[in-house]
Structure formats: C-alpha cells, structure tokens
C-alpha cells in the first residue's frame, strides 16, 4: 500500500520551511503574526490567520516529520516526537509527562480522543473564575466548526478487546459509560496513534491546518526553540529562537529573529509559561506558571483469560465519566476512566518491579488489559495544581506535588478499576504501584488496595494533559490573558493553548484547545485587519 505523505508533497510544492538546526548564519524574518508552537492551539491559529490573508510565521521546537517516517516503532518515535524522549517528569520525578515535541505537537502523537468541554466545567469557569464569554452556548458553534474541519465523529468500528473490557465491566456493574469520538478519516484501526499515524488517517494539525496555512504562504521554522520575546515599551518587537538538536539539548549558535505585529504563544502549558517567564514580561500578581494541572493518572493492570492484544486497534474508544459525574466538582476528587494502548516500552516502564516479578507481567503482554483513571484537578483547594519554574539552565520544569486529597481519589480509583476489571472477567488485577501485590479476586484486591501506602515514586502516576499556567479571565488580578486570549499587560501578545484553562477539564483536552483557539484566532484576525504581507493561496 502506498501512502501519500502530505509533508513531502507540500515541500515539493514549495512550502516555505526553515530548519533552524541547520542554519549556517543568523536569520531575520518579518510577518504579521508569529505563532510559537504548532500543536492544537498554534496549528488552528496559523490556519485561521493565514486564511484571513495575514502573513504568518510558525516557530516549532520539534522536527517536521511526516507519515513516510512514521514506522510504528516506539524506540524511534519517542525520542523524535516527544518532549525529553517521552521521559519528561515533574520536578520530584513523581509524575511522567507525555508531551509532543514535533510539528503538529501533541496532535501528531495523541490517541485521537475528542470530547467537548464538559458543560459543568464551563459553568464553573463562569461561577468561580469570573469568565463572562466562554460558555457552553458560546462555544457550541466553534465545536461544530472544528468537528467538521477535523472529521470528529463517532467511531464506527467495535472497540478493541482492551476497550471492550472496560465496557463489559461497566455494563456488569451498572456503571454508565460512553463511546469516544475520534478525529479520524480512513482509519485502519492499527493502534499506533501515539507514534504518529502512518496512514494520515488521524486528522492532526500535521495533516490539516498546518498544510492549509503553508499552502497559503505561511512560513514554518522547525527545530527552533523560542528563547525570548523582546519587548519595547508595552509591545513586543520580535522573538528570538535558536536551533535545537535532536535531543533538544544543544542550541545552534545561530539565531532566528522574527519581527511581527502580533505574537501568539502556543507552546503548551509548560512551554508557554516558560517563554513568558524567560522574557520577564509584566506579571504583577505572579500568576504565570501557577495553577498548572495534569489530570494525574493512575493505572490498573489485569490479566484476562482471553487474548487482549492491547497494542492493536483504536487505542481509546470507551470511557466512563461516572466517577466524575457522581461527585460535586469541589467534592472528593473525581476521575475519568479510559484505557491506554499497551506497547512494549510503555508497558515495560509502567509495570512495577524488576527481574522475575516484572517479567511475569511482561510475558503475559498479549493478555494484559489496562485501565487508567485521570484525576480531575483544579476544582478543590486540595488540588491547586503545580508551578512551572525555570531551572538555572533555562529549561522549564513543573513542580507538581500529589496531595492527600488526590491520593484519596487515587485509592478510590484503584478500587473502581479493579472491580470493573474483575467484572469483565480478569483472572488477576494489579494496581501499578511498587508495593502492590497481584490479587485474584475482587475481595482480595479490595483488601490490598485499602492498605496500600500511597506516596510519590511508589504509585505510578503519569500525565498526557498539561493545562493551565496562563489562565484566561476578565480580571487582570487573577488571570494572565483575557477570554479572547490577549495578554492583560502586553498589547500585541496572545496565548492560544491549554495553558489558558483556569482548571483542568476532566476530559482529554484537544477539542477544547481547538475550539478556544479558533475563537481567539478569528477574533485576532478581525482586530488585525488585512495583512501587510498576506499572500494568495498557492
């Protein structure tokens, strides 16, 4: 089967793409809008601005890699497409963070789960955070527009056995569950979304909005880390970027300088606050980087009598919000239940233990069924989020401590997952925790989980959703940007990505980021008027 790689085709058509790591001298660019980051926020923004006739330069830290190079091998995909080789961790190493670092950002490597922002979360943003214009009704047309653009819809294929076990367990216990909508077109149900879709079926920014922007004359600067936004008075004059090597560690001696009328920071909820902090922009209340959320996620493994083959098939198609919906937003920690894909590296590093103990689980990989619980953070004083800080070498790191409030939710999540897995027919269940022991009955699992000591670097905690740190709001004393994404203190700066969320979502964030960014970008385009250097489509 020959798959057309839209990146190769676009480059052949004459896309303007600069590899900052390969520059032999400094480079100066000028445009209407510089967009920093090419993920869900930056990608959508670039397309809308380019469509409006504005000259756009997109600066992306990661490499431009297309489907021809997506080979479904973890050991090549993780170092190439993820921040810190998929080994990014919170400051205390307690939480491993999966974050994309490539053109298309997280959308190139995510698992395609598409949820509209839960209405009660949007209502809470109004009630508790004073948002006035971001509501379920206001966002509805933006969701519709994005769903159409990115082919988001129900998944017509039966769930794989890994997802089906979650469904079966919920059914048996009378726990409400649902089917996850996905942003795919012509998906062959392979299961390797996390390593880049080799078929271009996933409607990521890489194959939709970014090609559209590039076809309209936008410039992409890849492998370029923005080190500073340079202000003159209350306006930004230019941004500076340096080429990075494959491991992200080595800065090229040459600088890319982008002058623009306006700057949109879409570098993700660790990268965006980091750029603002490094640039020492006005932040009178010290809000930037604070209230950063993760949906801290805990994991339960089960051995099923039948084969599960959790490495194959659409990775996430079934979910349950029962443990979110049945709790008050500001009550005990709620959690969303989903399943992850299980490939050898991801499985290997997530299963606890070493030696024979670890091998006993690894050698049952085809029978391994895994459920994850994503904790909703940011709604209760017991889950205030973490803080993005800059290390002495300038790299950002997230200081995020698990709290007693979250650990209490983790214990209930372990219990819920184990009960569901036994109800689905598991012969053995193991909460992924260094002190847990495998249980062969629900009764035994319950007793073991109830006495499990919960602490950092014992319970396996992961995150694939970083949110907050540049909260939007009407009040400059409690937020960093307006609900239109405009910085409260710097006239020509916006933030379009998950960092504008005032709390986490309790749902996979991509569709919320797309919709908010589309809304913000459309407003921005209108306020900037006709571009000085806009070009007709190629």
């Amino acid at each position, binding site marked *: 089967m020959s798959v057309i790689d839209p990146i190769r085709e676009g480059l052949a058509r004459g896309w303007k793409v600069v590899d900052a790591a390969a520059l032999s001298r400094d480079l100066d660019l000028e445009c209407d809008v510089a967009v920093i980051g090419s993920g869900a926020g930056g990608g959508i923004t670039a397309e809308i601005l380019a469509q409006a006739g504005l000259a756009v330069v997109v600066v992306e830290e990661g490499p431009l890699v297309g489907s021809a190079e997506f080979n479904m091998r973890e050991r090549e995909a993780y170092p190439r497409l993820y921040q810190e080789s998929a080994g990014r961790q919170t400051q205390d190493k307690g939480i491993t963070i999966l974050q994309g670092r490539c053109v298309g950002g997280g959308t190139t490597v995510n698992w395609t789960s598409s949820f509209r922002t839960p209405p009660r979360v949007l209502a809470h943003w109004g009630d508790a955070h004073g948002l006035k214009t971001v509501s379920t009704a206001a966002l509805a047309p933006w969701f519709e527009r994005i769903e159409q653009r990115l082919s988001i819809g129900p998944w017509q294929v039966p769930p794989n056995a890994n997802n089906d076990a979650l469904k079966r367990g919920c059914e048996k216990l009378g726990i409400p569950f649902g089917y996850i909508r996905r942003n795919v077109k012509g998906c062959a149900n392979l299961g390797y979304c996390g390593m880049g879709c080799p078929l271009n079926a996933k409607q990521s920014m890489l194959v939709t909005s970014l090609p559209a922007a590039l076809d309209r004359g936008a410039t992409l600067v890849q492998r370029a880390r923005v080190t500073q936004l340079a202000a003159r008075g209350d306006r930004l004059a230019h941004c500076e970027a340096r080429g990075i090597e494959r491991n992200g560690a080595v800065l090229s001696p040459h600088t890319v300088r982008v002058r623009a009328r306006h700057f949109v920071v879409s570098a993700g909820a660790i990268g965006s606050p980091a750029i603002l902090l490094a640039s020492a922009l006005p932040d009178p209340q010290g809000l930037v980087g604070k209230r950063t959320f993760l949906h801290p996620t805990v994991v339960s493994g089960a051995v099923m009598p039948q084969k599960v083959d959790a490495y194959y098939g659409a990775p996430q198609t079934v979910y349950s919000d029962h443990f979110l919906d049945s709790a008050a937003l500001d009550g005990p920690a709620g959690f969303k239940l989903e399943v992850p894909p299980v490939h050898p590296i991801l499985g*290997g590093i997530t299963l606890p233990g070493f030696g024979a103990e670890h091998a006993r689980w*690894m050698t049952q990989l085809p029978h391994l069924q895994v459920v994850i619980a994503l904790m909703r953070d940011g709604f209760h004083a017991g889950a205030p989020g973490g803080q993005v800080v800059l290390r002495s070498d300038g790299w950002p790191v997230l200081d995020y401590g698990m709290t007693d409030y979250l650990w209490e939710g983790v214990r209930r999540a372990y219990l819920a997952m184990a009960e569901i897995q036994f109800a689905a027919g598991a012969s053995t269940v193991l909460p992924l925790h260094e002190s847990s022991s495998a249980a062969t009955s629900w009764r035994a699992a319950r007793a073991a989980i109830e006495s499990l000591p919960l602490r950092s670097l014992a319970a396996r905690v992961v995150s694939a959703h970083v949110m907050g740190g540049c909260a939007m709001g009407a009040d400059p004393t409690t937020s960093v940007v307006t609900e239109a994404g405009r910085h409260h203190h710097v006239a020509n700066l916006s933030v379009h990505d998950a960092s504008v969320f005032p709390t986490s979502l309790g749902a996979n964030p991509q569709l919320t980021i797309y919709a908010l960014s589309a809304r913000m970008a459309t407003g921005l385009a209108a306020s900037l008027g006709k571009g000085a250097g806009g070009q007709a489509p190629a």
Partner: protein
Amino acid sequence: MPTRRQLLKVGIAGGLVLAGVRWLDRPQAVAASNYRFLDERSASAAAALVPVVLEGTLPGEAVARKRAIDETVEAFDRAVAGLSPAVQKEVEELFSILRFPPMRLMFTGLWSPLEESSAKEIGDFLARWRHSRFEIQRAGYQAITQLIQAAWYGNAASWTAIGYPGAPRLG
C-alpha cells in the same frame, strides 16, 4: 534521580562527599567509542545491572544473552542522550554514586563494584531503593529500572519472549 540539593537533604556528609567524588571520579579521558553518554566504567556498571533488571526475559543462550545485554546498554546510552541536560547530569551523578566506593557503600550497601557483585546483591540493593523512605533513592531505582526496561523492550529481539507480534505490516 539525585540532585546535589536532594543529596544534602539525605545527609550533609553525602553532599559534601559528592562534591569530592565528581572531582576524583572524573570520566575517563577516552570515552568508549560506541557511546554518546556513557564512559567505559559507567557502561560496565550498566551492563551489570541489565541482567538483574531483565531477569526472566533475556535469552538464556550465552551468545544471544551477551548480545542482548550489549544492545541494551547501547540503547540505554541512546536513551540518556535524548534526555534534557539537567537530567543527564543527574544520571551522571547516579553513576558516580554507583562507582565511587565510599558513596556506593553508603547509598547502596554494596562493598564491591557492581561488576563484581552477585545478581542477588544487586537485586537486594535495587529492592532497598525501591522501597526506601527517601524519595531520592526511589527515584534512582525508577531511573535505573525504567531506562533499562525501555532500552530492552524497544528492541525487537525482546518481543518473542513477551509475545508481542510487532506492528502490523502495511500493504
């Protein structure tokens, strides 16, 4: 993984000793040519850890086993080379602790170098770190085990033993 600041929390003496270690235990002038990050001595320490961490899924036959261990150390090296400079420095400090006798004894309880320790002695040290009351030791345990596990299970040679058929063929 330990940072010097965290070490000071564990014991001021430990932190002060570490400052000396880094001077006394500089990487050898000639790095092993196959590696991007490891030097020869760190590579042999890593090679001693691999069969303990991966017991149960490495090939039993001697030649295949040796090759699997070598390839795991090489992939371990590549993995560390892909981490941020700050984390690379922490891994370097971790190896300093594993190599420099007073530090090794104090933090791992191992009298002999890893290369001369038995699998049981290494397994006991990993188990102590795994359940340690100090976060820094639990972090060190997780760094060692996860880097080795990622290095091995990313290698197609590991897949038969765990029943992973590999990615589907396209077309």
